[in-house]
């Protein structure tokens, strides 16, 4: 539901604006707005606020950059605010930022060098025994060539060409590397070395040079230096990490406290800009939940004294559209606010659909997936996600929604007698409601009937919303649309003899009477809306379509066990197919349940456009 808001105006001595704003920040309930010019002669307080905010922003840049440069750790554990003195702490943060930036640059350079050196390590491992034996020729020269992946076949061709030109003056060795490339070592006598160079150049094969900075042009002589450098780089990387960890240990709590303080300062500066000051007084104005008004009055009187006034602004000067929107739902429904918030917030004074979403979304999901096995799998994933996520995060809300969906999936799985398709039969699992494989028509009728209930519920909410906003004519029009849908359903049921046939004529006559009344009330657009409502109801047939498709895929997966000759291969394919079906079963019902809500259900009553309620409060890091 949407919390009832009160608009309040707080006035006090001009020189005590800052303590008043700090108290409001401590309370954390007042959503500030710019006070209208009529309430105070002056404008926003000038003074040094913009300059202070600029300084705070610069300091915050340093702190944010320093915290980002630290190794990732667990939850925040800031120092108590009173232990952080702003100017020296900000100077320390600036110094730490510079040191951490330098460490980050050094780490990136070392990591790049380490990657390059590791490429040579495979080369050493492949040819080291060859290079350490006594050479055939005292003046032998080693050349190293790296052939790209897939070029291994040209090794024989290269060897043939070299043998043709240089005879037995060259030894060639090739080794495949784990990367897919082929390492080639050419050992040539001094007289043949220049011929080898020419051949490599003609074949456009570049000799692999020793890494830069080792002062050796030949890889053979560079090897010991290379190995030493790899060890040195690893040690430097470890030292770099150790220094970052040390900084984190010593400075993180102070940096986190400083970050919170600076954010609070900036929030106060923004709040100050919303206030109006006259010669003697300041005035701030804002919104807060109606129940929070009395405690705020009491706290202002207790902590600031009798010089301050907290007055509720009468409802005449503002419209309901001005108020910010805060949603408050029972604990069980709260995760589903995520679905409502994915849409623009409902306008103040309209209806928050979250409680209805919390019931129908998992129900539709469960109807589509409807399988005890898949439901248990989903419940396992949801419980793990919930366990690993922090309270109040989006991931936690998704996990809790998934848990609701899993519960409905298991319940409908029992109703349809499904456990990984029809495997439940082996465990004497029988359908309690109907068998989705054979009862296609009942399932279709059930889905459309559920759609009719959902759409009519949306229209009822539209009637309530319009009535509450004083739009009586629109409320009656929506009521007539409901009557037309119900009467049409009765006429259809009577025509198909589900209800007594004698009901058909009165229902049809009532439809014929209601129709012109509807047009008279809402105009010709009412016809389009009525047709669209019928279209929306039919759209719920997707519940049956997706449910049947999910079941059929599960049945096909089970049939693979006997269809592929080997039972082992069959079981493997069946498991793989079930996994694919489960993945589709998570994605598709979610998308379509969302669509049924956003298009079919919300379309009947939802009025978006509410401003988010953002009270002046202390800054909190988001996970």
């Amino acid at each position: 539901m949407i919390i009832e808001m009160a608009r309040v105006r707080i006035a006090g001595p001009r020189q005590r604006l800052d303590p008043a704003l700090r108290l409001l920040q401590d309370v954390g309930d007042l959503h500030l707005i710019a006070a209208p010019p009529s309430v105070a002669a002056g404008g926003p307080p000038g003074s040094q606020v913009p300059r202070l905010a600029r300084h705070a922003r610069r300091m915050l840049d340093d702190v944010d950059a320093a915290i980002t440069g630290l190794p990732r750790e667990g939850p925040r554990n800031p120092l108590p605010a009173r232990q952080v003195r702003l100017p020296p702490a900000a100077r320390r943060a600036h110094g730490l930022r510079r040191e951490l930036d330098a460490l980050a640059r050094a780490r990136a350079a070392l990591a790049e060098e380490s990657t390059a050196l590791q490429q040579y390590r495979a080369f050493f491992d492949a040819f080291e025994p060859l290079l350490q034996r006594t050479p055939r020729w005292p003046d032998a020269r080693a050349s190293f060539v790296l052939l790209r992946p897939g070029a291994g076949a040209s090794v024989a061709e290269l060897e043939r060409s070299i043998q043709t030109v240089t005879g037995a003056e060259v030894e060639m060795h090739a080794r495949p590397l784990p990367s897919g490339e082929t390492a080639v070592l050419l050992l040539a006598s001094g007289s043949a070395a220049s011929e080898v160079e020419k051949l490599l150049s003609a074949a456009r094969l570049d000799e692999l040079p020793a890494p830069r900075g080792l002062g050796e042009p030949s890889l053979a002589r560079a090897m010991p230096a290379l190995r030493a450098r790899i060890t040195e780089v690893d040690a430097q990387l470890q030292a770099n990490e150790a220094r970052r960890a040390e900084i984190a240990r010593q400075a993180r709590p102070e940096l986190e406290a400083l970050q919170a303080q600076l954010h609070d300062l900036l929030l106060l500066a923004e709040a100050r800009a919303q206030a109006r000051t006259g010669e003697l007084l300041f005035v701030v104005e804002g919104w807060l939940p109606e129940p929070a008004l009395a405690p705020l009055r009491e706290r202002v009187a207790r902590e600031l004294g009798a010089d301050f006034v907290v007055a509720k602004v009468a409802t005449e000067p503002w419209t309901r559209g001005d108020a910010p929107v805060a949603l408050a739902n029972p604990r069980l429904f709260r995760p589903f606010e995520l679905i409502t918030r994915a849409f623009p917030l409902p306008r103040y004074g309209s209806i928050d659909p979250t409680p209805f979403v919390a019931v129908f979304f998992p129900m539709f999901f469960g109807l589509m997936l409807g399988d005890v096995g898949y439901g248990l799998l989903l419940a396992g994933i949801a419980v793990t996600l919930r366990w690993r996520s922090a309270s109040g995060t989006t991931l936690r809300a998704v996990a809790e929604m998934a848990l609701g969906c899993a519960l409905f999936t298991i319940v409908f799985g029992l109703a349809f007698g499904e456990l990984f398709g029809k495997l439940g039969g082996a465990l004497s699992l029988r359908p309690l409601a109907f068998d989705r494989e054979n009862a296609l028509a009942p399932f279709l009728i059930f889905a459309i009937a559920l759609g009719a209930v959902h759409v009519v519920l949306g229209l009822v909410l539209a009637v309530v919303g319009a009535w509450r906003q004083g739009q009586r004519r629109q409320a009656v029009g929506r009521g007539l649309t409901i009557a037309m849908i119900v009467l049409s359903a009765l006429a259809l049921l009577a025509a198909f003899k589900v209800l007594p046939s004698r009901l058909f004529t009165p229902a049809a006559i009532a439809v014929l009477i209601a129709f012109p009344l509807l047009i008279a009330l809402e105009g010709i657009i009412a016809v389009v809306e009525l047709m669209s409502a019928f279209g929306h109801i039919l759209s719920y047939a997707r519940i049956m379509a997706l449910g049947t498709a999910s079941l059929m895929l599960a049945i096909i997966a089970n049939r693979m066990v006997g269809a592929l000759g080997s039972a082992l291969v069959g079981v493997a394919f069946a498991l793989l197919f079930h996994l694919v079906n489960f993945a589709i079963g998570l994605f598709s019902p979610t998308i379509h349940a969302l669509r049924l809500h956003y298009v079919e259900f919300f379309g009947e009553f939802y009025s978006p456009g509410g401003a988010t309620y953002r009270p002046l409060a202390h800054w909190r890091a988001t996970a």
Partner: protein
Amino acid sequence: MDLIWIVFASAAAVAITALATAWAQGRIGPAVAASLAEKPELATTAIIMVAIPETMVILGFVVAVMILLRGAG
């Protein structure tokens, strides 16, 4: 012979609506992707936009089922 026509009609109901859905989603998809590149906050609307034409193939499937059921009856 009747059975062939029943099967053919139900297959056509799914196939034609599937083609229509594919055509519509093929037009909507690139437009939505381009919008998302500029305004990622439109992700919810984007999902709905892409999912809307699926109604056609779903109703096609329902019609196909009804044809098969009537044929069997």
